[in-house]
């Protein structure tokens, strides 16, 4: 055997009439996911709001009340971190868990894979919807956090950077979710939480500022490997610039690179899984 699989598929060039069909199929698949998300909006709300609400309440209310942490901890550090965490993790989970199920025993995704559009566009649609879910999560958590804390940082000049941070954070989360969703078998879904989600949750500089980790150098290095760190740092740079943070230019560049890497990895793994 001298030929390989990939070139046979790669030669495929859609005739012009197919492009319009592919775009219509893409919109229909996007509408399907928006419809299902809307139908189960309360699930999204619970998924998005419950954990941050408890974290804020315990760390920024209960512990402040006991005098264990500074009164400004919630306002200056935790809430911006929670906004970043919500965008990132909601996007990650919003794509990974449904995808693991859809690629599982029932292969529910098959009908969309057989729709008249390139397989890669089905993955792109998943990224788009997960990024939108991440943005929605940040929008929900911000006022919820303000309600829990009684106040929230508000800096109109930082809003464009905040939007960039949340958008890129959600995109990176979606890329990681797409990659994991296409790799992890349904039977190993619990491992995803233990091995991936939990470490990401605590090494992403959401509960602490990265520059202040100087005293624990090894941990600072570990957290530098988590893309969530750069999302949280950018959100702080936008909302509370007085708190020490990584320069936004550096954070945005790292987030863009991470988005490109994980989008590429996600598209490749999705394509392989779809053809299995």
């Amino acid at each position, binding site marked *: 055997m001298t030929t390989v699989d990939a070139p046979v598929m790669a030669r495929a060039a859609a005739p012009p009439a197919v492009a319009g069909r592919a775009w219509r199929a893409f919109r229909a698949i996007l509408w399907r996911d928006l419809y299902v998300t809307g139908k189960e909006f309360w699930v999204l709300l619970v998924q998005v709001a419950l954990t941050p609400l408890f974290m804020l309440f315990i760390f920024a209310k209960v512990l402040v009340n006991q005098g264990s942490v500074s009164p400004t901890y919630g306002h200056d550090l935790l809430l911006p971190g929670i906004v970043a965490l919500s965008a990132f993790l909601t996007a990650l989970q919003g794509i990974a868990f449904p995808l693991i199920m859809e690629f599982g025993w029932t292969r529910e995704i098959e009908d969309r894979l*057989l729709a008249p559009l390139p397989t890669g566009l089905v993955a792109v649609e998943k990224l788009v919807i997960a990024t939108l879910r991440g943005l929605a999560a940040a929008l929900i958590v911000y006022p919820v956090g303000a309600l829990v804390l009684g106040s929230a940082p508000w800096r109109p000049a930082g809003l464009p950077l905040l939007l960039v941070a949340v958008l890129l954070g959600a995109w990176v989360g979606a890329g990681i979710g797409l990659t994991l969703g296409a790799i992890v078998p349904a039977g190993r879904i619990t491992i995803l939480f233990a091995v991936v989600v939990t470490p990401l949750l605590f090494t992403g500089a959401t509960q602490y500022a990265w520059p202040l980790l100087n005293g624990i150098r090894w941990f600072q290095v570990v957290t530098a490997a988590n893309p969530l760190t750069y999302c949280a740092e950018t959100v702080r740079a936008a909302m509370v610039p007085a708190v020490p943070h990584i320069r936004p230019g550096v954070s945005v560049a790292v987030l863009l690179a991470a988005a490109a890497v994980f989008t590429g990895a996600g598209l490749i793994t999705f394509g392989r899984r779809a053809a299995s």
Partner: protein
Amino acid sequence: MPGSDDRVGSDGRVAVEVVDLVKRYPKRDVNAVDHLSFAVAAGEIFGLLGPNGAGKSTAVGIMTTRLPATSGAVRLSGVDVLRHPVAARTRLAVVAQRPNLDRALTPRQNLTFHAAYHGMRRAERNARAATLLDEFGLAAQADVKVDWFSGGMAQRLMIARALVHEPDVLFLDEPTTGLDPQARLFVWDRIRDMRERGVTILLTTHDMDEAADLCDRVGIIDHGKLLALDSPAALTRGLDVASLEGVFISLTGKGLR
């Protein structure tokens, strides 16, 4: 070895043409599909038979754009499936062996969203869904949860969904496995109806009675190669055996796979 161009429809059209198709999975020493060639006429019911692991599912996976080929060609209603998979998807439909319905949607929405994926307008897709739900005896349960469906109902809904965009070629993977006799007869009747409408059907099955009863011609494959291709009656006559099962056993052996 049967040729690849030995069969055309009454109007002279070939619906599916498989030419020297090869598929070798990575890290395997043998081809899963080994220089397979055959043609299916437009409007024909064609059965692809073979023991487990013979290469049927791999061949169908390539024909339906879901698997890449190693070499060879597949043309479906004149469209090169390997070069233009998106165009091919507008002309084919697949009913999988296992229920793969979208469980986040109702039965009706499974049909209307499928229609939307294939570019049908809202009024058209609603009307088409209503017609098919009625035809497949599912109108009364059209808006419940798909999870509540029995195996037979799910199979009927999957066939209805496959017909929404009026494909030229319908691939049915073991369409009656696990169904009760009533549901099996219902599915057989619908398959014959589809042929009357001009839909070409390529089905895989392990039920030799089903193949003998439904199929105009069958191809028997093993180890990825085509061993025989003809009408069930001609194959039975040719090997001087009592049934298609006799043909199958004499060609593929009695050993377990």
